[in-house]
């Protein structure tokens, strides 16, 4: 799971929260998947043939998750440093970028006016719920 899904998580988060270049998504994804696949091969080679192609910490199954995220994000940042970062206006999601003529979109694309979506209540309650989870994990059952 970590070989594919963690790089994908990283791409979503980097896409939403950072101005990484448009081309960095696929490259970052491939970099993360490549690390995941290499890790599996390295573990197999070590135990079956005694050949170590990656340092042991990079093969560890628990370390693989944060490392996969690092490799993916790192590749995306490097690509963006080389090609430039994406301006905010070009990061606004739009279905017209790939579906300009799709008739099913016309009734969905214009979301209902939702000024209540700017209420702080969901954000505040979200922090409370996350705080409860952190408290249970790192205080009550630590």
């Amino acid at each position, binding site marked *: 799971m970590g070989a594919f899904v963690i790089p994908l998580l990283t791409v979503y988060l980097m896409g939403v929260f950072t101005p990484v270049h448009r081309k960095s998504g696929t490259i970052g994804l491939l970099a993360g998947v490549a690390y995941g696949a290499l890790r599996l091969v390295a573990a197999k080679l070590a135990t079956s043939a005694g050949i170590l192609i990656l340092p042991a910490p990079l093969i560890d199954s628990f370390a693989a998750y944060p490392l996969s995220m690092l490799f993916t994000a790192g590749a995306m940042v490097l690509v963006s440093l080389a090609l430039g970062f994406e301006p905010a206006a070009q990061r606004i999601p739009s279905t017209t970028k790939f579906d300009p003529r799709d008739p099913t979109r016309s009734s969905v694309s214009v979301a209902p006016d939702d000024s*209540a*979506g700017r209420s702080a209540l969901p954000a505040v309650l*979200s922090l409370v719920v996350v705080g409860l989870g952190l408290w249970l994990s790192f205080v009550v059952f630590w």
Partner: protein
Amino acid sequence: MGAIDWSLVVLLNGAVVVYALVRPRRSQSSQDWFLGGRSLPWWIVGVSAFATAIDSSDLVADCGGVYSLGIAYFVTNWVGTVGGWVLLAQFVAVPMYRAGMYTNSEYLESRFGPSARLLSSLVQVQYRTMVMANISTTLFLTFSVVGGLGNESWWAVGVVVSLASAYTVLGGSRGVALADVVQSVLMIAASLILFGVVWSYVGGWHGLEARLAAHDPALPAQMLHVGGERTETIDVSGQSPELRLRQLLLGGEYSEQSQTITRRTPAWLVCISFILVGMAYSIVNHEQSMRLFAARSVWDMKLSVIVAGLLMLVMSFFNLMMGILGRGLYASPASLPVAESLRQTADAVYPVLIRDFTTVGFKGIVVAGLLAAAISTYAGIGAAMSALLTQDIYARLIAPNRDGVHYLRVGRWLTVAVTLGSFLYVPFLLAQGMMMF
């Protein structure tokens, strides 16, 4: 299981399936099917997100995993999944919702181009159809161990899967969400009953500590504390020095006295890994985005994850603790009172607890709850994977200029195809175990 228990299972789940088939109006358009008509209030979306997250593999496979990993695994749900939901609803899904996107992969094309979208869809389909296979396998274990059906259990699994597919095909996202609400009641009741019975038998927290310590004095610290260092001990007695050296290439310390290799992982690294696993579940899976996209407004979408999060915080404790209680009762998978073929891993621990600790009537309710969990997630995954395949691959790459009615028909057929395809993973899961962390 006796006639009363089977009757309860059929009646309770049958009622939910009939409700799911009859209650929502039949989806007439792509927007109806893929986006639930954008009509659902926050509490339905929240309960549906929770019900989709908790399936029979969470109850059976995760308990099998918690049997070894201990309470540290709870962090996956308590922090990872809940935190992921908050990020999804507050930040990640909002622009997708406002842009009228049908799948979360569409966002990747908008942001990074078509290849990112295609890769995302393929990864999700592969990953989530394996989870569907997990669910089928857990149902097989339950029918086999609790129901005593043996290999005939696969017929029962087929019936359950067919029913889940039926209301998904007809009702789409809205039908799935409405059924989830009813199924959640069953799931929660079942979990609380089973927990109460086994917890009481074990003797509560102190009784559990004593039982774990009786197996191994170090076990309580490892199993009952998130902050405990994770220790993996590999028995290398009988291995040649060369094979032992190869094992040591992956790290660890060798003990000549006990002929074992011990690998230690610090608690902080274990927690980070588990949190990322949980977060990936919430954010990457389109079945979760699909629940949120059915909300009637952004405000409803953001509030829904509060409901889902609170339910997850509470029910994760009652559900996952069963794995640790099982470890207190059975020192190793080999000691589980099941057929030898089911003792290769600890995956049978949850069905064993149902079989041996519930009485007539309660057994039926607990199994009904397990089935409800399976059906709700099965339906959720089926709908989401169908959406990905229809929108991100078929409509985008193969047949881009067809109308919504055509895509709706294709989506329904792909639900069936995805469901049948998931069974290809089952032999592998039975042999290797379901929770491969």
